[in-house]
């Protein structure tokens, strides 16, 4: 049985798994990786901070008077809105598919994660088309009423703050859904069953048992969704929402102040710190570890009857339609209508391969770094290592272009070091090994998405009761044995989840890729971008569809593994 300690078990002060005299190379290596990951994440920030010390004259007076207040309000509203939408959709659907049995539930379980495969800026373009004046929806409304012009009737505009909130929410809710569902179906199941036996109605059960228990997971999901929101440029710019992130760009490019932009970027990190604290708060005070893994199982679901089952099915189907089927269907329609398949642009093959290769390489590196760092934190139990792990995730908070800009300097410094060494040995300069190659992109992806793997890893390790470590230690197991026999099997689902999410995010990444890519390197995102900037995004529909198509299997696997691997296989 899983015993979920939801009552706030006092956290025991524990000694490190490894006594100092037993520190092995492995542990030192893992510790070094944790420190390295933190340094990697700090590098672009440090160079940003240096930029931020540049002179800004009277810029801030102007910013505070005219720019920051509206941007702050819009950003705050956007974040609150997206949080609300993702929680309502994510938690609602997760609760429905884990609590009830209704027609289509099994299919919906995995379909609900699909919007993850669609880049947010693509959703923006699609919906502006679909819901615009010339789109099918308004055309269908005009026909029966005989309206001719937009002046004849009122229709909500997608290009607005509410539009941005809804669209962001529709593609980002799966972060919350996946996190909440994993909690609902395992941890909360035992309590839910007990409560049901005692006669609690499903809603009361949800409010009093499932939700409080799933709170940490929901907080993690919402934090991820909001960090994605903060990072977005494409969607907010297109929909005319003046966010803080956008103001970094206008300050840099239009107000001609890179130092000013760097300062706003640093200030934005405060927002991020708040989000990370939110996540921590969500997790704090409760430890949700599984004491034993035997018999962990899903709770049986309530079979819905009558109209309720269709209501549940429809409610869960709606976000899938809006967040995935409609946009993906639109892309398919554009591809067919434009004959993009028939007149297939062979120039697309290379970007597609490049994208997958870069994403795969970055994902492997992210996993290695993140899980080593977390393992180090677990084995060494040292505050410094914990701090390193916390810092390593900061890259997720920095908008892609800003990250890229900050990363250039450290990369070039390293390259100049190599050149100096090469010349010292009488050789010719070797050029820009890092800054001028795909290595720059991979490093940027690693910094950017390390936080996802760290989040998954920490959540995964947190589920493994420290008692396991103690027992293993008492029985004489060294850290290697502990890692191999206990942690590895239990952490595998988290690794899978992290791998796939990171992979999908790398596929979609645009801003850092644009600025850092070497000569002649094109990814699917940059391929779409060239059409989007010219206002004919549809011509990139096939590339967009390839991103979605490559992303789908990954998303399916996330869902699959989130299910199956939480039930340990009996040998």
């Amino acid at each position, binding site marked *: 049985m899983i015993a979920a300690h939801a009552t706030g078990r006092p956290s025991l002060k524990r000694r490190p798994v490894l006594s100092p005299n037993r520190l092995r190379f492995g542990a030192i290596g893992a510790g070094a990786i944790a420190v390295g990951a933190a340094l990697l994440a700090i590098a672009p920030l440090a160079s940003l901070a240096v930029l931020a010390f540049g002179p800004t004259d009277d810029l801030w007076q*102007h910013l505070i008077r*005219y*720019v920051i207040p*509206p941007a702050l309000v819009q950003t705050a509203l956007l974040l609150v809105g997206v949080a609300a939408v993702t929680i309502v959709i994510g938690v609602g659907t997760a609760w429905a598919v884990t609590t009830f049995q209704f027609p289509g539930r099994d299919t919906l379980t995995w379909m609900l994660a699909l919007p993850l495969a669609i880049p947010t800026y693509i959703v923006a373009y699609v919906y*502006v088309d679909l819901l*615009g*004046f*010339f789109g099918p929806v308004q055309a269908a409304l005009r026909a029966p009423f005989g309206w*001719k*012009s*937009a*002046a*004849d009737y009122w229709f909500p505009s997608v*290009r607005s703050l509410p539009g941005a909130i809804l669209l962001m929410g529709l593609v980002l809710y799966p972060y919350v859904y996946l996190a909440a569902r994993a909690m609902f179906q395992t941890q909360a199941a035992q309590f839910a069953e007990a409560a049901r036996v005692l006669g609690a109605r499903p809603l009361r059960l949800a409010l009093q048992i499932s939700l409080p228990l799933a709170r940490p997971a929901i907080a993690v999901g919402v934090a991820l969704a909001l960090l994605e929101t903060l990072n977005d440029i494409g969607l907010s*710019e*297109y*929909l*005319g929402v*003046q966010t803080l992130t956008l103001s970094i760009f*206008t300050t*840099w*490019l*239009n*107000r*001609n102040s890179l130092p000013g932009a760097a300062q706003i970027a640093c200030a934005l990190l405060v927002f991020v710190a708040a989000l990370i604290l939110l996540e921590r708060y969500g997790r704090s005070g409760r430890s949700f570890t599984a004491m034993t893994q035997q018999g962990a199982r899903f709770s049986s679901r309530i079979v819905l009857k009558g109209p309720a089952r269709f209501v549940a099915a429809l409610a869960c189907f709606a976000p899938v339609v809006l967040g995935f089927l409609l946009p993906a269907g639109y892309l398919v329609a554009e591809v067919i209508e434009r004959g993009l398949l028939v007149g297939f642009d062979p120039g697309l093959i290379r970007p597609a*391969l*490049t994208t*997958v*290769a870069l994403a*795969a*390489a970055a994902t492997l590196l992210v996993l290695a770094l993140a899980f080593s760092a977390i393992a180090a934190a677990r084995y060494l139990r040292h505050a410094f290592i914990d701090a390193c792990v916390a810092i390593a995730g900061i890259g997720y908070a920095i908008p892609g272009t800003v990250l*890229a*800009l900050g990363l*250039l*300097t450290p990369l*070039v410094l390293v*390259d100049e070091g190599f*050149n100096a060494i090469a010349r010292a040995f009488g050789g010719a*300069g070797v*050029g*820009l090994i890092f*800054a*001028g*190659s*795909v290595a720059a992109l991979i490093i940027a992806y690693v910094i950017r998405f390390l936080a996802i793997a760290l989040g998954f890893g920490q959540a995964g390790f947190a589920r493994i009761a420290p008692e396991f470590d103690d027992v293993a230690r008492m029985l004489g197991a060294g850290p290697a044995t502990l890692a191999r026999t206990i942690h590895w099997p239990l952490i595998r689902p988290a690794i899978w989840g992290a791998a796939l999410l990171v992979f999908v995010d790398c596929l979609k990444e645009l801003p850092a890729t644009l*600025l850092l*890519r*070497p*000569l*002649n*390197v*094109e990814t699917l995102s*940059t391929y779409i971008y*060239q*059409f989007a*900037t*010219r*206002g*004919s995004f*549809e011509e990139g529909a096939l590339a967009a569809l390839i991103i979605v198509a490559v992303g789908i299997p990954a998303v399916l696997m996330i869902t699959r593994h989130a299910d199956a691997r939480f039930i340990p296989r009996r040998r």
Partner: protein
Amino acid sequence: MKSVCGRVLSCLALAAAGMTTTSALAQGEVNVYTYRETKLIQPLFDAFTKDTGIRVNVVSAANGLEQRVRTEGANSPADVLLTVDISRLEEAVRAGITQPIKSELLDKVVAPRYRDPEGHWYAVSMRARIVYASKERVKATALNYEDFGSAGLNHKICIRSGQHYYNTALFAAYIVKHGEAQAEQWLRGLKANLGQRPSGGDREAARDVAAGKCDLGIGNTYYYGLMLNSAAQKPWADATRVILPTFKGGGTHVNVSGVVLARHAPNKANAMKLIEWLAGEKAQQMHADLNFEYPIRTGVPINATIAAFGALNPDPMPLSSIAEKSKAAANLVDKVGFDN
């Protein structure tokens, strides 16, 4: 599983192959950093390679290329920066990443106002900021930019974000003409005449006019040609007609795309060939016909679609004066809350 690994490895190898192209020492190539879209400029580069045998390596981005070149320093592989907007050209010069392009040939074919006095930048093509007016609702055939901010305009205007550099350049030109105080009044008036909050791109301005949300859309010349040639967007262009507005007592606001030669250009000779080739008749004709831009070189015919707008009379103000005022324009956009 093995085949998957194999594929991943071969992909990695392919990506690694991509990185070797940055080698700056190879003969017969030129490296271009650009803000122009690959699809648009690739035909030009292909034609250049065909003419000269020099291979063109490209990286295109949305912003930050000046910063990238500057940070890359002496090891930068960049030979040529091909950019849009006069302010960005001047910014590249200010950033110290350029060197003078010394070419008698260019000086002969590019008029002085479309190049830097010291030769740090040369324009290669030109566009005008114009009005897409509703065929149905707008009777006027001529407009002044000054009218946009007039309370008596009686037409709703649609425009993209005031912070987009197409617009800051226009607003900067207004400051050059009328001074900052009047420009602020005008910008407030323009904001009051907006049919909706600024968003989307230039094509959306035409789309919104076609939809009846506004009567006048503000956009660049070439978008009109591009819309006419896109099945989905042709109705937007068809619902509007182009008016080339002018400043009172002046001409139409124009902006340019241009080139600079990177300070540490490793392939300088090839870079010079490319820059001169871009000002040649063939490249100028391609600019005109592929992207509906005005050629910089005199004597190259304007594309018929664009010529149909009527004769363009570019305002005589020096382009560099626009760059000087672009920051002031951006500040005004904030001050009047144009985008809010």
